């Protein structure tokens, strides 16, 4: 531990090395999780149980947020498009924004703060109260029994939640644009359908949300597993999960977008 009076450069170096070590540990951790996933698939009941806690309990926040985001897109989009006389393109604007970007990204950020932090806290507490050690002493591998099911549940939940977010958002845009403001319903849907391509936009959006799911679940589980077994340790780990996951999602979004939507 660097003590006061140590040159700043050395402490930065020490921190950097620490982080690299931690990254290596994290990589080994995910390798172990994948290797020990056999139990999860042999006993799908474990994954189903975790699907409830990560997916089902996140549904409400995802659906409501999606609705609001879609409604705001409808409002803002209308304001801007009117100046160019292109209100009929509102459907295109809402659909493409959601399916390509906002759906995967915003639902990932919400997922990280709701389900991700919950996973970190749960595993951190299990570690602090020696439940993981108890499991080890009973010859049950905690990674196979506790970590892997949660990983697969998170990976499965994320694309489904992102799709729900986008669908609700489009509905919200429809409510605001067509029902409330009065954009022509026919052109709303028809222009949307011709502009949104299943392979280009929707599938890419699903791929994005899948990648985000892997990243968020990995970070959440690792932080929980590695947390110091104290109250401050667990709380610090939970915070780190949300922050790191959010940054990772945004960075990955940029990388994926530049691959997928670079304009061929």
């Amino acid at each position, binding site marked *: 531990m660097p003590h006061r009076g140590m040159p700043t450069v050395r402490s930065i170096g020490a921190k950097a090395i620490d982080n690299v070590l931690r990254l290596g540990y994290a990589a080994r951790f995910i390798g172990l999780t994948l290797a020990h996933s056999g139990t999860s698939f042999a006993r799908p009941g474990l994954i189903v149980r975790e699907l409830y806690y990560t997916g*089902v309990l996140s*549904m409400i926040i995802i659906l409501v947020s999606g609705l609001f985001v879609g409604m705001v897109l409808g409002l803002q989009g209308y304001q801007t498009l009117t100046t160019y006389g292109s209100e009929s393109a509102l459907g295109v604007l809402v*659909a493409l924004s959601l399916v390509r970007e906002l759906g995967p990204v915003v639902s990932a950020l919400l997922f990280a703060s709701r389900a991700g932090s919950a996973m970190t806290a749960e595993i951190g507490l299990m570690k602090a109260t020696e439940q993981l050690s108890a499991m080890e002493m009973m010859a049950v591998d905690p990674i196979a029994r506790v970590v892997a099911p949660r990983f697969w549940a998170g990976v499965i939940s994320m694309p*489904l939640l992102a799709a729900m977010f986008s*669908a609700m958002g489009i509905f919200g845009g429809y409510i605001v644009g067509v029902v409330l403001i009065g954009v022509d319903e026919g052109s709303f849907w028809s222009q949307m359908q011709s502009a949104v*391509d299943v*392979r280009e*936009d929707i599938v890419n959006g699903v791929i994005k949300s899948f990648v985000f799911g892997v990243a968020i679940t990995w970070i959440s589980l690792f932080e929980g597993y590695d947390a110091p077994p104290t109250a401050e340790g667990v709380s610090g780990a939970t915070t780190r999960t949300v922050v790191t996951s959010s940054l990772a999602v945004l960075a990955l979004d940029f990388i994926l977008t530049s691959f997928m939507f670079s*304009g*061929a």
Partner: protein
Amino acid sequence: MGRSMLDLWVGIFVVAGIAALVILAFKVGNMSNFGGGDTYEINANFDNIGGLKPRAAIKSAGVVVGRVKSITFNNERFTAKVTMAIESGYKFPKDTTASILTAGLLGEQYIGLEGGGDDKMLKTGDSIRLTQSAVVLEKLISQFLFDKAAEGGTQKP
């Protein structure tokens, strides 16, 4: 939370998620590009392709009949060779014209095919001989100025 209640809710969740995906795929997006259908390839050479990109649409009478597969530069003739993938259901005669058009005023560029009157149809690997290159704005302007100057010249005594 009883075991069966839990399973029920997870089932609802998965069904809702898949339903959302299906709605997005079918109602929101268009499936025209989705894998389906065999295609055959034909080529066309253009002097200037303008802003044409691979995967651009190929339309005839306004309907999408295929996609641009690849664009390469022919170094011997200094033209652009565009390879097109046309859906197998659509046959075009040998004297079809291929033009590069723009969708809307400032939109994306696509290839428009106009059928001729020939009896024989294009097969895989054939080339379209009648092509019209993209309209390049600068050339249009300089052409316009040249015409204007020439017109002014003939008028002067």
